[in-house]
């Protein structure tokens, strides 16, 4: 059997996501403060830690744990990030519902499902200086690695590096959507907070999965 990970590790995987966002609360707000409201870290940490509490002491599948995260974001934080990340995680969950183990091909569908669900409520794309600059290249990198016969582990590595490159690309972009778009040229030279948080999430997810891979 090809590399895969058991789906009953959902609570641990999502708890790691909670930890990485909470640990970066101040950093995300600082990045956001340069061209936004400065509350990205505060709101994200609020929503993610709400999910952390509901996961405590429970052994959930990946789909169930992602559902809890979606609920915490959709009901716990509003703004733009609640519906955006909520849509991403519900789209991911829908692709792995009822599965015992998740291989590379399934994980590719999880990523694509999350992106498609997000695109359902947002028209943003690469170049808009937003989380899509991280997410779209990361999803495509994983899919391409898969298609070219790379191992699950190798595909995760390529996804991580595409995510970081995507995040860094926002430094040289002029914001086209969201509150920063009002700044025009003045938004140049700083990272987009959503692209940064998305990179933290994808990187952490890749590392959690990699640590649980079995042949």
């Amino acid at each position, binding site marked *: 059997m090809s590399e895969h990970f058991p789906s009953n590790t959902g609570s641990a995987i999502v708890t790691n996501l909670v930890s990485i966002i909470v640990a970066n609360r101040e950093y995300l707000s600082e990045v956001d403060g340069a061209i936004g409201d400065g509350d990205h870290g*505060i709101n994200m940490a609020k929503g993610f830690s709400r999910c952390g509490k509901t996961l405590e002491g429970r052994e959930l599948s990946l789909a169930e744990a992602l559902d809890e995260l979606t609920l915490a974001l959709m009901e716990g934080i509003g703004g733009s990030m609640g519906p955006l990340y909520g849509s991403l995680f519900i789209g991911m969950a829908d692709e792995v519902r009822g599965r015992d183990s998740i291989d590379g091909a399934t994980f590719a569908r999880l990523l694509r499902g999350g992106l498609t669900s997000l695109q359902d409520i*947002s028209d943003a794309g690469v170049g808009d200086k937003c989380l899509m600059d991280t997410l779209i290249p990361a999803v495509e990198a994983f899919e391409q690695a898969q298609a070219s016969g790379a191992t699950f582990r190798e595909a995760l590595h390529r996804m991580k590096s595409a995510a970081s490159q995507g995040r860094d690309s926002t430094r040289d972009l002029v914001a086209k959507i969201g509150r920063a778009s009002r700044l025009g040229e003045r938004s140049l030279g700083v990272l987009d907070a959503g692209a940064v948080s998305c990179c933290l999430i994808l990187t952490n997810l890749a590392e959690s999965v990699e640590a649980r891979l079995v042949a």
Partner: protein
Amino acid sequence: MNRVINDADLVVEDMLAGILLAHPELVQYESNPRVIRKRTSSPAGQVGIVTGGGSGHEPAFLGYVGPGLVDAVAVGEIFSSPTAKSFFDAFRAADQGAGVACLYGNYAGDNMNVKLAMKMAASKAMNIRTVVANDDVASAPPAEIAKRRGVAGEIFMWKIGGAAAAQGYDLDGVIRVAQKAVDHCRSIGVGLTPCTIPAVGKPNFQIADGLMELGIGHHGEPGIEVVPVESAAAMAERMLAPILADRDFTQDQSVVVLVSGLGATPVMELYIFYAEVERQLRAKGLRTHRCYVGNYFTSLEMMGVTLTLLGLDAELSRLIDQPCRSIGMTQSE
């Protein structure tokens, strides 16, 4: 940052506690502390009016819940859209069987959360329609009017929509007049100092001493020009010009003027500014039917003022004069 708060992370929760204690005519909806409704519901068969938005703009949004205005409001974090769940619960709180008009401002977060809330409502076979206010002339050129933000003109949309609902208009009718109020309305703001979200602790934009920013948004979104602070008369002229250039108000019977402080402006200065506005409107041959001067739609402790004009036809004129009662606006017969 000197503020009158307990915990910077809980300012919205703590404010809501005070609102409910001070105003027994308002209540929380079921188990959702972020939805506030009238204690006495509108009669069965009346169209429900819902709005919602980020906190920090008080008395907007929750201060416009009351007879002749809004039935239920979704409350967000400071400068951040309410959740989709809260909009959905507000729909449920306001629904008296004749459908719900969700009248809100054009911001990315609100658009997404309302869209998701409408999906939830559709699955319960509820009839929800929306009007999105985009009255801020400084936020996009006329060719991109759909991108404009909603600001203080939202109050006219609620007033007109709420009056129409109370008069027995059906949902189509309420939506039509609320949209007409938006179409007949233009606003612009000027900011003289920045504002600080308590949990952030420092302003996220700067306005240098002695300067002011024309066209600044309700969350400090950059305006169209930064100029030295000038007299109230010159400010009135500078703010009226883009409003009058954007829409022909001479085609209307008369106009309604709304002058709102942004939070830190002395009310005295709002009246100094208003006198200049009315004088200049009169000089241009525009008749003022009614005016509202005060802190109607604020941005925390920003110093500055917003100016909104609403052009009236016979229907809008009749509806704007209807009675209403709320924290933010009360008028008798």
